[in-house]
């Protein structure tokens, strides 16, 4: 195996190594991360800093109490010794099996040239955390995406709407592990819903309020015009419901 031979039978017999610690010194780093922000965080917030770990060789992950996440992130952004002025990413991770959903913040400090990853674990029945849009404006769309795909609610977000999925999407939150790859509804039901789309749903209320009442020149007879969108819709012939087979859900 160590002679670099590609056809060695030992390598095949060894197969894919077990998922637990590999013979990989960098990834198997059991020693705690050595990161200046970590010590400062523990000094400042004590018990709110739950855990810290080192992953992928040299990356530092700090698990914090979700109820204190805003204060901690605000301090990380504003304190002179930290200055994490750039929020690179906000995302979620669902491990499935009822385990907590993680909300992950990737921070970068342009002043100290340091990166830090902050994680909050939320129980699946209480997916709520305070929004950080007031700290970093970039969190606006990133948090909307986490809400859209994981169903995590961000308190204090100015405009928490779905972003990638349609506003009237009813199948749930696609990146959760309990969500089947092809969606919850059968193909027939999905087609039926697509055909039944309402033009009004392409706009949300703030947009429909733009511009006030429609302007009609006097004498142009605008009143008598029939609104095409209000006309009764022709019924769509019912499509026979086909139950999604087991092979539909597994790719």
């Amino acid at each position, binding site marked *: 195996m160590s002679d670099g031979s590609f056809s060695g039978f030992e390598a095949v017999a060894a197969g894919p190594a077990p998922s637990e610690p590999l013979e*990989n010194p960098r990834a198997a780093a059991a020693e705690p991360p050595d990161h200046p922000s970590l010590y400062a965080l523990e000094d400042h917030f004590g018990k709110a800093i739950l855990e810290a770990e080192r992953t992928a060789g040299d*990356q530092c992950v700090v698990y914090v109490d979700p109820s204190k996440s805003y204060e901690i992130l605000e301090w990380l952004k504003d304190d002179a010794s930290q200055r994490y002025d750039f929020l690179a990413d906000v*995302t979620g991770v669902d491990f499935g099996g009822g385990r907590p959903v993680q909300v992950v913040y990737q921070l970068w400090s342009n002043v100290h040239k340091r990166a830090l990853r902050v994680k909050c674990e939320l129980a699946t029945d209480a997916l709520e955390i305070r929004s950080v849009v007031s700290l970093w404006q970039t969190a606006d769309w990133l948090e909307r995406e986490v809400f859209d795909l994981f169903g995590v609610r961000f308190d204090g977000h100015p405009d928490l709407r779905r972003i990638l999925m349609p506003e009237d999407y009813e199948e749930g939150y696609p990146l959760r592990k309990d969500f089947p*790859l092809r969606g919850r509804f059968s193909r027939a039901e999905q087609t039926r819903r697509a055909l039944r789309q309402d033009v009004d749903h392409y706009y949300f209320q703030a947009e429909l309020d733009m511009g006030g009442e429609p302007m009609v*020149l006097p004498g*142009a007879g605008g009143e008598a015009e029939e609104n095409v*969108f209000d006309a009764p819709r022709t019924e769509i012939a019912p499509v026979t419901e086909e139950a999604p087979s087991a092979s539909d859900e597994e790719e």
Partner: protein
Amino acid sequence: MAQKTVEFEVSRNPETGMDFRPAQALVHPTDLEEPDIGSERMLINIGPQHPATHGVLRLVCELDGETVVRVIPHIGYLHSGFEKLGEYRTWNQIVPLTDRMDYLAPLIYNCAYVMAVEKLMGIEVTERCKVVRLILMEMDRIFSHLLWLGTTAIDIGAFTPFLYAFHQREKIYTLHEALTGARITTSATRVGGMMADLPEGWTDALRDFLDEFPKTLDEIDSLLTANAIHIGRTQGVGVISPEDAVNCGFTGPNLRASGVPYDVRKDQPYYDYETYRFEVPIGEHGDCYDRYLCRMEEMRQSRQILYQALDRLQDGPINVEDPNISLPSKTDCMNDMESMIHHFKLITDGIPAPVGDCYFPIEGSKGELGMYLASDGGGKPVRWRIRPPSFVNLSVIPQLAEGHMLSDLIVINASLDIVLGEIDR
């Protein structure tokens, strides 16, 4: 929803049948009470199918006259669920998904993904592989910036740069094709190496391109940089301050045009970027014109990096020699049973990854392209997340466009260099 158009009674000339002027007989214009349109706002919907939105982007705008009061972007029309699909695929099977996101610079995405996986697994690729990937990434930076240059020029009304730029892009397409067999969906990388080594004569073809290409760049430069129309349309348009740019998550040339010297290649160097001589161009006004200048200079700098990398390119293995990661050669597979089984095991089970997670940013053509991977120790990721630079850059468009004319909105949108495949994923 009520229609918000002004309605006219249309008369038809009984003799010609061709006159569609508004009927004058109903109400004489002087009889009309002047409607108060000073405060009237209008809703304009641009897209999702509109050439100026550079993809299936939809912008709902509130206008006061021709001034944009509010912009509300709608995305997701190209949402393909790549991140969800990735959870059902082994590490190597994800590679073809990556180049379908940013189809304007596919090789950068291919490389970014495998680099993140290698970081997670602690794999150190060979020296030759590093240089080859660096060459591919810098080549695709030029590739992507050229498309940006052409399409932005066309949005401003200059048609010629578009043709010049696409002529040069065609040469890079040919290089893509020679290396991978595909022009856009390259899928050139594998965990621990490349799909294939550079073919014979490829580096010479790249050198030829690099020798010829500045001529075109200079021509476009002379057409646009001092062009009064171009300057008038871009200077002072879509200005963002350095503080706001960082706070809004701007990265790449958009951020640097505001004067913030953040470049992942310099600040978190990978693949020995710290040993290459190159400058990071910085703007000072943060407007569309500075974004143009930054990208023009970045292409020249990428060319410098490419020359240095081509000089460093040494012979040697391109894939790591670890049977847990790399596949046996095709010839071995066809000739001995052990290699066949080895191949089969690697393909079906995937490469085992350690438990943990990893965020790996690189400098893509559009900004910081981060790949975040979470693994529970299996042959597939638990979560594969792309930090899409255009997604974050686009989210700033309401702030940039408000108060400008509608025509400026098109220029601002073009100057951000978005690609919707990556925004919607």
